[in-house]
């Protein structure tokens, strides 16, 4: 029983991070209708920013979080403003391809600049943990979980209650009407994509603390973020929290009861099932 509890706690902690990973992808997808295949590469870059700040300047990884977000925001903003805005009205397949191209460029640039070695961000408190309801909780994972949930809720509040959030949602609903009301879509798109990249940067920062990084982690993370966005649905930012927690717990349980080699089979199997049975996500309204 305590083993089951431990597994579920692990799954939930992992799920919080998953939710943050998927949030940026779901935001960009929902608003700009771009499935950003370079999302995982953004996460990877965020992790490297945090790694270099830690090893070269001894900045605590959690303190480096705003810097990771800021640098990735700049990258995302510039990419959307100068490249992706050029094909916003192109068929969906073209945007899919171009983000894949960006993913490849970022991955191999990272390989050339950072080398293919595994890196790990290892602060002094990395090994410490505490006990909660009989389950052992690693401190960094708990912190990462809290930050991930905090950021997700913040993004939700920003989208729901600020002027910028309303502009973003207006563009998602009806671009023409938004323009008539004085929203400048070039800027709003760039800001949204930048925000998505900043969230990926934050996820990368936290990922670097709880796991190893190398230039190739991006693709698997993109695939996972996809799965979570679909399972949770794009209508509602809180959907990714449900999707993330669901996937995290599912993976932990599969590793325990079926075998760790099956955890990918389980998550992608569920993804295909959800796509076929509830294409609007678990929380989405069926049409």
């Amino acid at each position, binding site marked *: 029983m305590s083993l089951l509890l431990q597994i579920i706690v692990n799954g939930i902690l992992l799920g919080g991070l998953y939710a943050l990973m998927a949030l940026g992808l779901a935001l960009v997808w929902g608003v700009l209708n771009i499935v950003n295949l370079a999302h995982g590469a953004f996460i990877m870059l965020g992790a490297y920013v945090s790694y270099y700040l830690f090893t070269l300047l001894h900045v605590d990884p959690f303190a480096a979080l705003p810097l990771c977000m800021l640098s990735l925001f700049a990258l995302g903003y510039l990419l959307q403003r100068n490249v992706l805005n050029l*094909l916003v009205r192109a068929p969906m397949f073209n945007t899919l391809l171009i983000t894949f*191209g960006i993913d490849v460029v970022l991955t191999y640039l990272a390989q050339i600049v950072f080398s293919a070695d595994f890196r790990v961000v290892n602060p002094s408190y990395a090994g410490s943990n505490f006990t909660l309801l009989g389950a052992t909780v690693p401190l960094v994972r708990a912190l990462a979980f809290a930050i991930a949930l905090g950021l997700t809720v913040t993004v939700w509040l920003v989208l729901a209650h600020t002027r910028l959030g309303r502009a973003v949602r207006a563009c998602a609903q009806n671009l023409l009407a938004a323009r008539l009301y004085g929203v400048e879509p070039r800027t709003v798109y760039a800001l949204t994509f930048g925000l998505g990249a900043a969230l990926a940067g934050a996820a990368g920062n936290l990922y670097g603390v709880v796991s190893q990084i190398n230039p190739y982690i991006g693709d698997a993370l993109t695939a996972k973020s*996809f799965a979570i966005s679909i399972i949770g649905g794009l209508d509602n930012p809180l959907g990714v929290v449900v999707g993330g927690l669901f996937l995290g717990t599912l993976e932990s349980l599969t590793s325990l009861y079926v075998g760790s080699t099956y955890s*990918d089979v389980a998550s992608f199997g569920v*993804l295909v099932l959800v796509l076929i049975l509830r294409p609007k996500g678990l929380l989405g309204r069926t049409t």
Partner: protein
Amino acid sequence: MIGRYYWPTLAAVLVVFAALPWIAPPVLIQFGTTTLLLATLAQSWNIIGGYAGYASFGNSVFYGIGGYGTAVAMVQFNLPFGIGLLIGSLLAVVFALLLGLPVLRLRGHYFAIATLALAEAMTGVVSNLDIAGRNIGLVLPLRKDDAFFYELSLGLVVLVTLAVFWISRSRFGFGLIAIREDEDAAGVMGVNTTLYKSTAFALAGLFSAMAGGIHAYWITFIDPASAFDITLNVMMIIMAIFGGAGTILGPLVGAVLLASISEVLATEVSAMASLFFGLVIVVAVIFMPRGLADLTRRFPGLGWRYFRENLRLHRL
């Protein structure tokens, strides 16, 4: 579009390609085999992605199934290569039909992602199968005859291209194009969309699986990571799009061009070749989204305006 010199030129190119094993050094023949197999994959993708407009990211599943079908038949049951290839191809067709029915109901992004997920899931499934050697893979019997594999691949490219040629001028092909342009309208006009889409998916599966089988026997080794490699999937899509999806020769030209450039770059620094691939995609998608086929058709009339038109059409 078909001029006086079309068929003679095509025949001449084919003769040169077929004669390559007798005139070229071994390295070139091996590179040629790889390129021809990639061209087969790009052309198979063209059937489902280019003609039917369903952006499949899961065609590498068929490639993997074809390879594994062949390998398991040859290693575990001591069957000859021909029978193994047949088994692998049949498996892929059955798989395409069974999975096509639910998955082909999805459209746009959702279809792309579901097929991508299938590719991921298959890697996991096969690495747990004892008969397929789990995640260690299988070693096939050695046949040291590069010319044989080269000619076999060339034959396969010709076969799949003939199939696409037939599709492009048959009732079936027009049905697929109608589905690509507007699936609901196609249905209303009396096109059996489910049947047409499944057939296109199965055809793409058949040829990809044969390429997989040939590749596995050629390099005498297969493992889950290489058989269901997602990069392969993306390569075939880029080659098809770069050359011109929905055309007969476009995917072949795209495959040969991109494979050659990437091979030349890879001799310098291997990461450079991949970097170049990424840059080509970005630039090509922005300036020539309909591929080389469209470029060669309209560039002579429009000149540099062609690129500006493409930009103006899609930017915000």
